[in-house]
């Protein structure tokens, strides 16, 4: 087990252009499940590939277990990686797929069977060992890829969107399995995803990336409750945080904190909303309201309510947000600032 660290890690693909990854400084904790979260093109996969040694950094350093590994090939870094496509070897049986890293690293042959059996049991794929990858379902392939990754007992796990090829139903159960799996093996894991639900559910900490820059590092609670800037505020959470300009600051509040006025006594912000759309999502309702009045007029904000069955489109309602739920961002830099009273 080891700690991964990056120092001013930068990757520029085309000279003169904006880097894919820009001066990233990160340190994992021992045995941590760290998630890189960002939209596509945010540089999260490039960052992961530089840690794996598949991409050469333009500048900066990668450290694994305290040693600079920039000059080391992937095989010398003792990492294991699960690819988005799983990258199983199509011509080899599941057994041979899992045993491949052992063969490649010259583990004595008599240990192969034991180790493959151990990995297969951990992931519940003992019955699939004789099959070829194309005879497996998506979920089974994912488990084979994981088994192939753990069989050599790596110091670090790198997972590149391993759930994105699964259908929605399978994804939830695979997520749960991955979490349990991480708890059992306890290996430092870096997980790349663009899915905020995965990031929130699985990460010990989440690294939010945008345009190759780390916007925030924090626990799921931190990044959700105290977003570092407006990008994090709107990227996390669905529907995203409501943002309203007020002088030189931007005021933000989560849709679940925009509630009917009677449930927010002494609200810091009181809003008159003309309901423009009401959506029923089963466990909750989403209400889109256009603000009326002098402040924030014509802005549309979103409220997330346990029950909005009494609200109809076109009607005017009183809503409010209590003070402790307000977040403030600097208008210029978009970075979160100290709370202040609204003028």
């Amino acid at each position, binding site marked *: 087990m080891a700690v991964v660290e990056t120092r001013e890690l930068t990757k520029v693909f085309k000279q003169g252009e904006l880097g894919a990854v820009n001066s990233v400084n990160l340190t994992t904790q021992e045995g941590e499940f760290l998630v890189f979260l960002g939209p596509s093109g945010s540089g999260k996969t490039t960052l992961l590939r530089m840690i794996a040694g598949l991409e050469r950094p333009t500048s900066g350093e990668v450290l694994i277990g305290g040693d600079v590994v920039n000059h080391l090939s*992937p095989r010398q870094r003792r990492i294991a*990686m699960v690819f988005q496509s799983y*990258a199983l070897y199509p011509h080899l049986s599941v057994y041979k797929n899992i045993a491949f890293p052992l063969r490649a690293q010259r583990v004595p042959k008599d240990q192969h069977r034991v180790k493959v059996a151990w990995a297969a049991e951990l992931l519940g794929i003992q019955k699939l060992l004789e099959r070829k990858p194309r005879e497996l379902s998506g979920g089974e392939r994912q488990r084979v890829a994981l088994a192939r990754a753990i069989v050599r007992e790596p110091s670090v796990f790198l997972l590149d969107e391993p759930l994105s090829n699964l259908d929605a139903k399978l994804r939830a159960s695979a997520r749960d399995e991955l979490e349990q799996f991480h708890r059992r093996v306890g290996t430092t894991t870096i997980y790349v995803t663009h899915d905020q639900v995965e990031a929130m559910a699985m990460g010990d900490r989440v690294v939010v990336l945008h345009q190759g820059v780390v916007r925030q590092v924090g626990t799921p609670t931190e990044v959700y409750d105290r977003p570092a800037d407006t990008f994090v505020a709107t990227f996390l959470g669905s529907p995203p945080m409501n943002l309203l300009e007020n002088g030189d600051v931007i005021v933000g509040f989560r849709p679940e904190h925009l509630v009917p006025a009677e449930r927010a006594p002494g609200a810091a912000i009181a809003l008159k909303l003309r309901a423009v759309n009401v959506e029923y999502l089963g466990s909750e309702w989403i209400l889109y309201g256009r603000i009326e009045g002098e402040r924030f007029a014509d802005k549309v904000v979103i409220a997330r309510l346990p029950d909005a069955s009494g609200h109809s489109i076109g009607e005017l309602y009183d809503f409010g947000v209590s003070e402790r739920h307000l977040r403030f961002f600097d208008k210029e830099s978009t970075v979160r600032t100290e709370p202040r009273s609204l003028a």
Partner: protein
Amino acid sequence: MTTGVERAAVKGQDRGYLLGAAMFAPAALYILLIIGVPFAMAFMYAFSDVTVGSEGMSFVGFDNFASILESPTFRKSLENSIIFTLASQALVLVGSTMLALALNKPFRGRKLVRFVLLLPWVAPISLGAIGWKWMLDSLYSVINWVLIHLHLVKEFDPPMWLGEPKLAMLSVILVHSWRLLPFSTVIILAGLTAIPKDIPEAAEVDGAGFWRTLFEITIPMMRPILNVALLFGIIFTFTDMTVVYVLTAGGPFDSTQVLPSYAFTTGILSGDLAQGAAVSLFLVPLLAAVAYGMLRVAARSEVV
């Protein structure tokens, strides 16, 4: 009972068949006339006593085959054909796999290199072969000139590339390989590009070095395409005589005579159509077996 709609559908289908047949006919006719007819004639000739000058012919059964099997030149040609094919295919497969691997990696000027590499294939084969004939000429050989100036061979006793049996065989094999290399490289390159980038990367992360990745991942995954390249290569080599004919005309002393050139010499130059046909037909069952076997292997090694 059929409804009007059904009948119209059936009629439409009929018209579809007709149109299909009409579109297909030129190709079928082309194959029939250019390949089918000569093939049938060769088949007929092989069992007859026809010569270039004869007016009629009578059928003689397997006499032609019996007689060519006894001919030492035929046996030598068969042996040469096999050596020629196996040696050039081995060279081509190894060479084109190496080239394809190199050309699959991005580098400056890759497009130009790819284009230059294709030249031996697009240039008329006889032209290329004539170029080689000059380069290997006993008096004017540039190759010998270079070797002499490098003091690698004696000035007054340079190798006679096309004049000594072993060297002549080596020369035709090398020139033929040079000629087939681009074709094979392009096929293998196509196979290589079809391998998802993730897979060699996964092998790299798994700890495999260059050779293990090559022999345990890349080549097995390319096997179907390698088979296709090999199948074409074998057929192009076994049935082709251009390089041999231009460079050595089968000589010296039949040391580079292959079955196609022997068939040509016997059937056309010497006028014994019947024997020439028998020689060329001799290859057909052999090649059919090779093709069948290769296609079976290609179909069985399912990838992805």
